[in-house]
């Protein structure tokens, strides 16, 4: 198995970013292609259409590269770890026939194309090791000019579960995927020196104003100081945990210009009142050079993005739709208004129509 990697033209964007991705016979995708923007990429669609899988593939690739960059050696990160899968076999498209079981994950990042065909029968399958070897064979220093790390915020609030998590994860076969481990590593990292901190001062101040108190790390456990007492993070509102997570990632330097932020359903547990500020922070991050990927089922998140985004802010919406052959079709849109059919909006439309029928006693003419 060889990579069909080659250099492509470099982009005009000041930081490398995920430019494209193609998936073939991978999880929910028979075949799907993505052209991403350097700003905000929003994945919407019904449950089970593979939105999170796309984020995890991209995250896995970038994690490999940043690990490789840091250690100057092959990375041991495995795709199954990122997905929390038992075997590579699980990552193949479920309804594939045996004959068709050749897949491909390919893409472009930072102006470089990469491609990797795979099959579950391969005994030497190790996506990340091969990928590292591929990058390593090129004479060009792939790791200069701002290759930076990726941060994946899973839908579960790991900031409330940091104490003892890393040691448990390393020692025992627990049912948490690699993204949960990685976010805890970031959260428990020391904060940057104050002189370093704050390219993000404005955003961090906005986020901290939304919290009930200062976030304090004692040992491996987070607290919020409320008055004279400390409140354990698991007792703090879920929405505040989300805000505290993003703020902490800024303060430890996990998010910098050139990094990538993946956020799986940021709306989970978040009061809609906080979504305004959260989206504001995300847009500021994107403008500073952080490429952002979001999955969402929230009308408010989508509408806030639509209202707050400026005309020259790069944003793209990807609609994931189930197909008749149990796969997923992906369609990109550059504005929210163009997204059709919009499964989130359609649910509201249905609610509105039912409300009209209830109030007026009439049904709409088609």
């Amino acid at each position, binding site marked *: 198995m060889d990579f069909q990697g080659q250099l492509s033209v470099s982009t005009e964007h000041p930081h490398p970013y995920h430019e494209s991705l193609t998936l073939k016979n991978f999880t929910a995708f028979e075949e799907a292609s993505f052209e991403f923007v350097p700003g905000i990429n929003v994945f919407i669609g019904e449950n089970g259409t593979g939105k999170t899988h796309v984020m995890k593939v991209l995250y896995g690739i970038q994690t490999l590269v940043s690990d490789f960059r840091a250690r100057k050696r092959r990375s041991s990160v495995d795709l199954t770890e990122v997905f929390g899968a038992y075997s590579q076999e699980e990552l193949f498209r479920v309804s594939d026939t045996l004959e068709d079981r050749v897949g491909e994950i390919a893409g472009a990042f930072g102006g470089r194309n990469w491609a990797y065909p795979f099959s579950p029968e391969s005994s030497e399958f190790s996506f990340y090791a091969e990928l590292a070897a591929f990058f390593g064979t090129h004479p060009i220093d792939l790791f200069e000019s701002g290759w930076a790390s990726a941060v994946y915020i899973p839908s579960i609030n790991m900031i409330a579960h940091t104490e003892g998590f890393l040691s448990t994860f390393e020692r025992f076969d627990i049912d948490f995927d690699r993204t949960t481990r990685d976010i805890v590593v970031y959260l428990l990292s020391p904060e940057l020196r104050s002189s370093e901190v704050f390219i993000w001062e404005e955003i961090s101040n906005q986020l901290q104003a939304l919290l009930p108190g200062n976030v304090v790390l004692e040992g491996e456990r987070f607290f919020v100081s409320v008055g004279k007492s400390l409140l354990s993070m698991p007792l703090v509102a879920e929405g505040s945990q989300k805000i505290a997570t993003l703020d902490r990632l800024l303060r430890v330097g996990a998010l910098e210009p050139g990094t990538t932020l993946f956020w799986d359903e940021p709306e989970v547990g978040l009061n809609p009142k906080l979504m305004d500020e959260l989206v504001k922070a995300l847009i500021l991050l994107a403008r500073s050079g952080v490429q952002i990927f979001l999955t969402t089922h929230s*009308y408010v998140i989508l509408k806030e993005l639509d209202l707050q985004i400026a005309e020259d802010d790069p944003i793209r919406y990807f609609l994931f739709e189930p197909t008749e052959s149990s796969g997923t079709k992906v369609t990109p849109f550059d504005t929210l208004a163009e997204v059709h059919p919009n499964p989130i909006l359609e649910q509201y*439309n249905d609610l*509105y129509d039912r409300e*009209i029928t209830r109030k*007026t006693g009439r049904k709409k003419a088609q």
Partner: protein
Amino acid sequence: MRQMRESGITFDFAEMKSVVRQDSKADGGHECWSGIDFRCVTATGEHLWIEIKNFDLSRFPPRFRGGKQREYVGKISSKSLAREIRDKFLGTAAYLGLTGTLERQPILYVAIVEPPRAVDKALLLGLSDQLAGFLQKRLPWTSPASLIVMSLDEWNKIYTEFPAEKD
């Protein structure tokens, strides 16, 4: 054909059993204070109170459109639009109550809101809920009322026998 025009929208009320233009003495209304636009009774006996908020900018000269757009955004974000629509309802209800002419019939208050740009139904639903909250504490002298906010397009799909169109 009984046509009535309000805020740049013309309604065909020929099929209505009765229509009162609330701010016009000539059409059965009064000029004491501000109220809703129309009180209607349909042929089947539905009591509809109609208030129209038309922010369609095309009916204004270009130099006024920026101001009208800002007015709409300001009203939506400050909830003053919801309060204004509520106050129109209460104004009419108060007048009818004080003059002993408020009929004890269930009323459906229909606020037709035409925003400057096409709007999601989710926002109309949100505005409906906000207004319903304002009107929830029914005063003893008002009739049982419910409320719905709809666009002109929705009106034409629901009340097909009373078509309306913008100028």
